[in-house]
């Protein structure tokens, strides 16, 4: 069995967002890019599954040369092979999913891990889209995963609890925080990753179904009132919440 992990390269969550000159994307100046936090759980689960089943792990990322840094991180953690799908212009989630689906098919992977969302566009859909394109089963927002033969039992997070879900391979799993504790790359892993191959392939955005009109910053709220500095301010706070805000 071959396992794929799809990873994205995103601005660090501590980034202060500035809008770029085109008005449709962020200004990348001074922004630190990292592996998408949810994708670390995806990589870890793929590696754990590799250790149990003796399979091979290929890590795939769609983007520019800069994504190699994220691919290297996954390789240093223990993935065997990297693929950089090079972007040509703007890709919406659908073009991304079609490009990934083609690569997953070419690589002949029947188990694929994604992060449950990228912390840039927060679409939460790429894994499910890719699964439907491939006709694979899919369980999203997974916090517990077990594979026995062809059978998958997973738990997905829902409002107020979890659903226990069963399905079979081939399948796509999207990882939620809590699924596992991602390992740190060892020095040995980092050294070994330098010898691992990152294959580069050209792709096309031929399924853009949505279009960005513009990106803006949210209107900033006026700072409110500091009512006091100790418990004597509490009755006034309660009065404001009842009479002014009318929320309690």
């Amino acid at each position: 069995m071959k396992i794929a992990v799809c990873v994205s390269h995103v601005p660090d969550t501590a980034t202060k967002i500035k809008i770029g000159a085109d008005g449709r994307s962020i200004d990348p100046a001074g922004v630190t890019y990292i592996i998408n936090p949810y994708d670390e759980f995806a990589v870890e689960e793929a590696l754990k599954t590799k250790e149990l089943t003796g399979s091979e792990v290929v890590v795939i990322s769609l983007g520019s040369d800069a994504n190699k840094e994220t691919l290297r991180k996954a390789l240093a953690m223990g993935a065997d092979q990297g693929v950089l799908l090079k972007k040509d212009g703007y890709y919406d989630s659908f073009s991304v999913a079609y490009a990934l689906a083609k690569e997953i098919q070419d690589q002949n992977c029947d188990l694929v891990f994604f992060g449950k969302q990228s912390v840039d566009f927060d679409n939460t859909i790429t894994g499910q889209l890719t699964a439907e394109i491939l006709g694979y089963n899919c369980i999203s927002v997974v916090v517990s995963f077990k594979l026995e033969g062809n059978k998958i039992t997973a738990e997905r997070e829902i409002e107020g609890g979890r659903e226990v879900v069963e399905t079979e391979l081939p399948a796509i799993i999207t990882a939620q925080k809590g699924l596992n504790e991602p390992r740190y790359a060892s020095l040995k892993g980092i050294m070994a990753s330098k010898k691992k191959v990152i294959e580069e392939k050209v792709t096309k955005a031929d399924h853009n179904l949505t279009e960005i009109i513009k990106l803006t910053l949210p209107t900033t709220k006026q700072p409110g009132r500091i009512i006091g500095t100790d418990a004597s301010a509490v009755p006034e706070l309660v009065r404001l919440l009842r009479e002014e805000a009318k929320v309690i």
Partner: protein
Amino acid sequence: MARIILAVLEQREGKLKRNAFEVLSTAKMLSDILDLKPIAICIGNNIDNLSEAAATYGITKVIHYKSPELENYSPSVYTDIISAYAKETNAEYLIFSNTSLGRDLAPRTAIRLYAGCLMDCISLHNVNGELIALRPVYAGKAILEAKINSEVKIYTIRPNVFKVKVSEDKHEAEIEIKEVSSPNLKTKVIALKKSEGKLDVAEADIIVSGGRGLKGPENFKLIEELANVLGGAVGASRAVVDAGWRNHGEQVGQTGKTVSPKLYIACGISGAIQHLAGMSSSRYIVAINKDKDAPIFNIADYGIAGDVFEIIPALTEEIKKIK
């Protein structure tokens, strides 16, 4: 033939959820501005409050796909049923709620219908016959204005943002029940594990959140007590989740949940950018923190710059008095 907008209603345990009524009202609102025929679709077994959906929201028809095997969510069956119905009726617009179910189901349906899909919309408006959506990105640090160019269009709407509105059109819709036999249960939910008695931050009207300022996991009982008297949910900052004080399900912020309750009370939370991103769209924000320069006060409507250990219990007592 009238162009159709489908409202996809979510039920759990035999009851339509509140978000289902938001979806109904939004579909009705869009049907008015875009001249569409609104139809609601729901999958499940027995659904107690389905007649309420039919009677009061101005929908022309409610379709109920019914089977004892469909009591719980199944991604494969739900996708099959909704996309088949949308194809059969040539539906042009589909509206889902941006819940764990909607986020899972909408993209699957989108591929079947080759429909563009915009998630977590906070506004949908008509500009020259085109529907323009606003959606938060970068966990709310920026707002994206976008549109869909495919013939069929799918939107998921953020819970608690779109108003539930009873229609003036008192026409009662017909409920059509379609029995489903041998559904495709390739992927199915075999059990539900509920967090006992706990309200989820994603669904709560009021959230009381705690951060590092609580100094230790044992002090979260202060947060729980306040949440309790308010009928709200307990939230947590990333710092305390990473420290293992609280479960990830309670985390609010960029790598946790994005919430928009009517009241958010942040206790001992300084307001790191990734936390603010997840809660700044709350209608009213109260901050309690001893550091008067903490960034949380910049977005709070009301603040008390003092000791959480003194103020939270006093607030709990004061609220008990009025309840």
